[in-house]
């Protein structure tokens, strides 16, 4: 797999966004109750793929990682991956060893991504449907 180096500004900006996102979780988590309920689920009984993300955020705000994961595993995993990758990019840049980003998705990822989305939605349908 070929990669291109991340630019310095992107790596540092990504790291800052990861830190800011993590810092905002408690603030956002306390405001989740103000969000309207999922209209798709209210109208059809079927959850949307983002269902549970707000409640996962609220659980994260209280430090309940397991509960957050149970509400929407893919959303929590994606947020963790984003934050960790951002921190790694910034740390690599500051250490003088910039990370690279793939130019294209490898074949396994092309298969895994749609499967993960489908599996997460099936789980949400079982849990919330």
């Amino acid at each position, binding site marked *: *797999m*070929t*990669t*291109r*180096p*991340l*630019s310095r*500004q*992107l790596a540092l*900006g*990504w790291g*800052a*966004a*990861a830190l*800011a*996102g993590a810092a*905002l979780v408690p*603030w956002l988590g306390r405001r989740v109750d103000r969000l*309207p309920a*999922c*209209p*798709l689920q209210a*109208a059809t009984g079927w959850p*949307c*793929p*983002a*269902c549970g993300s707000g409640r996962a955020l609220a659980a994260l705000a209280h430090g309940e990682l397991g509960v957050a994961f149970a509400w929407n595993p893919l959303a929590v995993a*994606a*947020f963790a991956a*984003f934050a960790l990758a*951002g921190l790694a990019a910034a740390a690599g840049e500051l250490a003088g060893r*910039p*990370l*690279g*980003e*793939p*130019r*294209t*998705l490898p074949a396994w*990822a*092309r298969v895994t*991504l*749609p499967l993960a*989305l489908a599996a997460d939605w099936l789980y949400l349908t079982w849990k919330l449907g």
Partner: protein
Amino acid sequence: MNVEAPPPPPPQPAGLPWERRAEVGAVHGFTETLRRLVVEPAAALGEARRRGDLFSPLAYAVLLVLIGVLAERIWSLLIGTSLLDVLPPHLRDNAGLAFALSTVGLAVTLVVMPILVLVAMFVYGAIVHLFLMLYGGTRDSDTGYEGTVRALAWSMTSQLGQLVPFAGGLVAMVWGVVLQTMALSSLHRTTQGRALAAVLTPLVLCCVCFAVFFAGIMALVVGGLAAGSGGR
């Protein structure tokens, strides 16, 4: 995974006026960039820099979002003020307090918003970039994830849609999809079909709720108007 030596970069475009604000002035640079992205977006996006100075597009996005928030606030205020006469007296008496509280809320929003915009640009950029890679839209790109963040930042021009009363959010969303498609296509040198697919997939998957919500609101409004105008 090995980091390859980067291929020789193509010539860097001159940059949008906002990116050259040191020479053209910040106010002129901002207004001219805004005008060009509204009037001739394809040509303007072709001039946007592809690397270096990531601060400029991000600062532009923050300014546009703040304009959008203020516009939405002003419309709420104007519409709220015009409705004062029809409010019951006890509600009218509390309108001042409600206005003061909403002004405090606006002040907090103006402080938190730039941080939220920065986080949103990178988070949403990561999602869109992932789908763009999935659809093969980054094969000929020399900008990578940075290009996607830049594209989304310039596309925040669509926040001007908030100036439209009542349907501002919907206008901004549709205009945003169009601008994001053009910007991704230009900055990644990919087809507009791939760029559109990368923009629409997360919207359909994650934000289908909002689409249904908007459709429901519109149906209620249209239904209410039809009921009001018909019959009697």
